[in-house]
């Protein structure tokens, strides 16, 4: 559609329309600003929970913890996801964006909502945590901001769907959509479900906060709230898995081993991921075990099956591409000779490994109906989701941003030397955060608690020395992750503002040629990936049974 303003990407030959490009820029930049704010809050939280430092007073701690959850778990991630949706539709499908004015309206609503909720939190009367469980009440504009944010995100989803329709009608591509776009469609479908659940619970809660509704049942609130709260994490999973495939393709020319398997794995997410509200309800009164078992397992673990498949097909496609390039010695030459100095690749691969080994395994174990008894609401829970949402999603989004800078912002990275190290610094820091919080959780340390010494309490409970050590190590890891996060923001903001314009030069570090033949059953050889998957599966099985053993040691309950 040459009547719409566009340029041609020198690397891919794709038409990049101004409307899509500007919206991707606006959403990505806003996302990164909120990452900076929320990340700073996170550092304050970790330094307060480091018993030897104990930085903030109690009221500030609970305020900052609420802000941390909102800004990084919700605002940073959703803004970035909207950018991903526009990229995966308009850019990858070579199309213009549907209804850019609506997209800007959605963007404005999200921004206003995010700021409104942040203001409510900073005013001090809404330290109710990200979950805002009733009957604890926040200021009305806390809920209103969330609602506006959600409406804006919903508009973004529909602009994405509209773009798919336009691209199909205007025949901007041939055949089926690319796998990455398919992943983005998965994310957008789950997002619609998520936002609908959010509306069903947050609108009445807002009305309750202004006094129009008398009371809200606590269990009903929690069940529906988590249909939003957990499903939104499944948007993240779909989006970051799509980014894994994107980076493997752009950096290494990797092709999916089999389009069918990878797409089926995404389809599993759409069909089953929404059941995960149950993960948060395993030790509640008033819910039957039958309901808990079916839902917490995503119906026979079929969504977990989806993730386990991506866990083989993503590294497998990388191995196949590397072997096709001639790195065929032994089991792991393909991995050793991977572009570890390219932050897009190193960030992506660490995200893949940590999401699987730390986040995936701990999530399934913790989501086992009975095992949840020994983990629910301990700091094991944030340990788990920092592995999924920070090491998994945030690190993948950071890696993806290293591609957006040359491709969309058309700038070269500044501080290339530091950029090489940034994913490692952030990744190792987050790994520490996850591992040490999970460790402290198994020792009983609760989440969302300002002080574990019981200094001001009438009755005391003394945690073990090991628990204190874990919380200290968590603090040190958080400093490392915060440095990595700061470096990321400095590099990206610096590059976008001051980086050399790339112009029509070919972009370094990107492979736009395909390295492998299409999903050929007869030619695939991925022995290294098979070994990696076997190591993963063994760890999974061992850790799973060890936790049944821990459970068997606690007081008999029925």
């Amino acid at each position, binding site marked *: 559609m040459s009547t719409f303003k566009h340029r041609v990407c020198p690397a891919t030959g794709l038409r990049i329309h101004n409307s899509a490009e500007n919206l991707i820029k606006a959403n990505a930049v806003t996302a990164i600003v909120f990452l900076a704010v929320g990340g700073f809050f996170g550092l304050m939280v970790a330094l307060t929970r480091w018993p030897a430092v104990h930085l903030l007073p109690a009221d500030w701690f609970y305020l900052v913890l609420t802000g941390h959850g909102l800004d990084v778990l919700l605002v940073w991630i959703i803004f970035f996801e909207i950018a991903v949706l526009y990229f995966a539709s308009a850019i*990858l499908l070579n199309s213009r964006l549907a209804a850019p004015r609506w997209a800007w309206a959605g963007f404005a609503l999200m921004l206003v909502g995010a700021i409104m909720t942040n203001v409510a939190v900073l005013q001090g009367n809404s330290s109710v945590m990200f979950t805002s469980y009733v009957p604890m009440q926040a200021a009305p504009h806390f809920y209103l901001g969330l609602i506006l944010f959600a409406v804006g995100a919903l508009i973004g989803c529909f602009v994405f769907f509209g773009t798919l329709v336009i691209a199909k009608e205007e025949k901007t591509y041939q055949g089926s959509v690319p796998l990455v776009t398919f992943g983005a469609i998965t994310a957008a479908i789950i997002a619609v479900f998520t936002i609908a659940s959010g509306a069903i619970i947050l609108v009445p809660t807002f009305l309750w906060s202004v006094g129009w509704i008398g009371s809200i049942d*606590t269990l009903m609130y929690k069940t529906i709230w988590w249909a939003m709260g957990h499903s939104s994490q499944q948007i993240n999973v779909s989006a970051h898995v799509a980014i894994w495939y994107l980076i493997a393709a*752009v950096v290494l020319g990797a092709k999916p081993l089999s389009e069918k398997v990878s797409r089926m794995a995404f389809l599993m997410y759409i069909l089953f991921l929404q059941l995960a509200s149950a993960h948060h309800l395993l030790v509640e009164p008033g819910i039957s075990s039958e309901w808990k078992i079916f839902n917490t397992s995503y119906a*026979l673990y079929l969504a977990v099956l989806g993730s386990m498949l991506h866990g*083989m097909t993503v590294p497998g496609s990388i191995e196949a591409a590397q072997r096709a390039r001639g790195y065929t010695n032994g089991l792991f030459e393909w991995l050793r000779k991977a572009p570890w100095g390219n932050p897009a690749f190193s960030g992506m691969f660490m995200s893949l490994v940590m999401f699987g080994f730390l986040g995936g395994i701990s999530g399934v174990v913790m989501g086992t109906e009975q095992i949840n008894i020994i983990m629910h609401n301990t700091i094991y829970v944030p340990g788990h989701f920092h592995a999924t949402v920070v090491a998994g999603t945030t690190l993948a989004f950071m890696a993806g941003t290293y591609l957006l800078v040359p491709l969309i912002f058309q700038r070269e990275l500044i501080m290339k030397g530091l950029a090489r190290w940034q994913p490692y610094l952030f990744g190792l820091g987050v790994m520490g955060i996850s591992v040490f919080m999970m460790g402290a959780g198994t020792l009983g340390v609760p989440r969302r608690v300002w002080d574990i010494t019981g200094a001001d309490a009438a009755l005391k409970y003394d945690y073990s020395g090991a628990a204190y050590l874990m919380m200290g190590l968590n603090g040190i890891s958080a400093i490392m992750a915060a440095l990595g996060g700061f470096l990321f923001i400095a590099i990206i903001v610096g590059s976008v503002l001051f980086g050399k314009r790339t112009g029509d030069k070919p972009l370094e570090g990107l492979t736009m040629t395909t390295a492998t033949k299409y999903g050929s059953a007869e030619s695939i050889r991925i022995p290294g990936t098979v070994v990696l998957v076997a190591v993963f599966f063994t760890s999974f099985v061992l850790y799973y049974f060890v936790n049944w053993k821990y459970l*068997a040691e606690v007081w008999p309950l029925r």
Partner: protein
Amino acid sequence: MAIHPPPQRIWWNEPIARTEIVWIVVAFLWGLLMFSAMIYWHMEGEQNLSNESYRITPELFAEKANAMVEKYQVREEAGFPVVRPPPGSDVYMIARLWQWWPIIEFEKDQTYRLHLSSMDWQHGFSLQPVNINLQVHPNYDMVVTMTPNKAGEYGVVCNEFCGIGHHNMIGKIYVTEN
């Protein structure tokens, strides 16, 4: 590539590599096993939640707890009554801003029906160092039949955020040798 439309228009008829098929089957069976494990534990395991719970008002629950304290109080500690209810009986523990009330004394290897409910917001019953964690709601009376199997002094910390005094909400359970 994953960023291009599949080169084969009819990609869904392409054969799948054996490696992938084997992994799909293994992962699927593992899921079935994990699913069955939860059901198996309900039949053979000793740590399960009962699904026994009732709707109740905070006033009625407090009344029951007070009646229990009046009947079975044995001493006082730091302003809290310590109760020693008989084995097999219904034991009530109140969660409120910001205390677990009263202190309870169990006898080792005896079974008790512990009732938990909140007077106000949600709270988290976290028994330490055993690490049994249960969610406590207002208006729901949750019944857990527990058999303490080791004597000692246990802490009950709150692990559901409940406002500015959350970290001070610590209670106690004693388990004595019989």
